[in-house]
């Protein structure tokens, strides 16, 4: 390869999600000092000319590099962990992080099965010597608290039996709450929280259908004024749609690091769960295979690992 091509490859190796280890090894491994200097001079995004006559790293070049190298390691560690420990650790981080991470709590509480959530709560006891409900109710102070405490405490009935008249009356109750949401905030409404946090998933899906019949609208969209409620309903009723959207956001160009983290999280936690449905939904919604999108956006071992996980569930 010509030097200019090599510089381009190396730049790409540092720009995607993860790092392209092979290129790093083959190119950097053989470059002499002058070639490395050309790389530094030719990359004003990463290096700037210092007044004392050397090409100096931008601060966040180093930081970003660390994050990109870590992506593979984090994915592996997360993947090899017991799913209960994984969920417990993610929950703890989310509680500490605050509102931007509450969706993670919703994912864990609503898209796992009752026994999986219970397992996560057990692991939480072992790891942190507190129950997840203690920490959720203690550290979360905003209007989402009531809902989140209720969601993490749930032990939903897992059978398929649904009482249609209850579903109908609860759909009506939700419709009323939504209509009056300017007077009484949805997150403060005990009935809304009760229905979403205690009812079984088949029941909530029945409520969703009844709501459509009553109001000709989609329940999750109508709850958008409190985004976390929308996410809750989506995770309970159609997790593959929710996860597809999150993945699409994470794979867009130029998104920030926080949103990109979701890529590892979703793929690792869903690889043995809903991956087949997520793949199909992604293809349907965006017209491109999830694995192809990952191939285009990520690189190196990180990319290979993710593509491997995505191919599961056949």
């Amino acid at each position, binding site marked *: 390869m010509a030097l200019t091509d090599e510089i381009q490859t190396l730049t790409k190796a540092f720009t995607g999600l993860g790092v392209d280890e092979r290129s790093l090894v083959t190119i950097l491994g053989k470059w002499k000092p002058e070639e490395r200097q050309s790389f530094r001079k030719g990359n004003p995004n990463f290096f700037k000319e210092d007044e004392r006559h050397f090409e100096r790293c931008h601060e966040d070049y180093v930081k970003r590099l660390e994050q990109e190298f870590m992506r593979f390691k984090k994915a592996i560690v997360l993947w090899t962990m017991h799913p209960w420990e994984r969920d417990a650790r993610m929950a703890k981080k989310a509680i500490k992080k605050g509102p931007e991470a509450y969706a993670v709590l919703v994912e864990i509480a609503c898209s796992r099965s009752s026994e999986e959530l219970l397992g996560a709560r*057990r692991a939480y*006891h072992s790891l942190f010597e*507190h129950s997840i*409900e203690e920490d959720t*109710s203690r550290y979360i102070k905003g209007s989402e608290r009531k809902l989140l405490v209720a969601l993490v405490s749930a032990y*939903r*009935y897992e059978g398929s039996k649904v009482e249609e008249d209850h579903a109908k009356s609860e759909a009506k109750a939700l419709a009323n709450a939504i209509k009056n949401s300017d007077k009484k905030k949805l997150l403060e409404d005990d009935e809304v929280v009760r229905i979403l946090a*205690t*009812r079984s998933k088949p029941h909530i899906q029945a409520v969703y259908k009844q709501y459509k019949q009553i109001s000709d609208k989609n329940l999750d969209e109508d709850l958008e004024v409190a985004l976390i409620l929308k996410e809750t309903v989506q995770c309970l009723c159609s997790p593959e749609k929710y996860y597809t959207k999150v993945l699409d956001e994470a794979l867009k160009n130029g998104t920030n690091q926080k949103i990109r983290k979701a890529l590892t999280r979703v793929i690792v936690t869903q690889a043995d769960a809903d991956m087949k449905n997520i793949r199909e939904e992604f293809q349907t919604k965006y017209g491109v295979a999830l694995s192809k999108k990952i191939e285009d956006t990520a690189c190196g071992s990180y990319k290979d690992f993710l593509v491997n996980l995505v191919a599961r569930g056949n």
Partner: protein
Amino acid sequence: MATLITPPHFSAVEDAEALRNAFKGWGTDEKAIVRILGHRNAVQRKQIREAYDQLFQEDLVKRLESDLSGHFERAVYRWILDPADRDAVLANVALRKSEYDFNVLIELSCVLSPEEFLAVKRAYQFRYKHSLEEDVASHNPGDLRKLLVALVGVYRYNGEEINATLANSEADILHEAIKKKDFNSDEVIRILSTRSKAQLNATFNRYREEHKLSITKDLLGASAVSEFQKALHATVRCINDPHKYYAKLLRDGIKRIGTDEDTLTRVIVTRAEKDLKDIKEVYYKKNSVSLDDAVSKEISGDYKALLLALIGKQD
């Protein structure tokens, strides 16, 4: 300690046959039922049910339900079920009462270990095709529901670790709330319904050290007490001193004989294999009469015979 007395030798088949004989002919030999079932533990009772089913192709529980009646039947039915299943039934019964019996739910959340409570919730789902949380949440709106839903949903950490600083600050929070009569504040409910029992007991101790009065006395206060206050009081009692709690419940239950045998049955049936002995000691200390004597005096018949057997009265 348990009060149940079981014989040194046990044969499920013999017991099943003896019970079968008790049902034969006109009328039922209730004494035989008390003599056998009243002296078998949970594992043995389960084996007897299985043996009976195998030998006679009949569900022993259904047979008992149809052949017996009244308080005796209710007591036998509760006694013969598996402990987790029994508690699930008791919870459901309490929910369907028109005068909401919150004590049962509080006991499940605060006296049982977290794993035992979990087993009850599973049994409840299996029996009623609903989760306990759903059913508690959809009954009786209002402040009491907020507390009970929180108590029923919890899966407490069951370690012994205590954080003394936390105990201090949460004792203060509780004290403030009680002083202002702000009983159903989110903080009170949060503390009582999420902290581990060890942590809560440390908090209650701290409360008494700081404020000279125990939290239980403070909760009841001088003026008329709301249902919510009573529920909080029961919650604290169950966590702090369940033996005292049950002894009081028995005393109240015995006073209400003629109108409420359910409480008496419930306490004896659910604690006979656990700590009824300790409860009896507290009972005697508080009332200067033994539980055996109190029960003998107030109730009669086969119902009395069964309860006395469970209490550990030697024939």
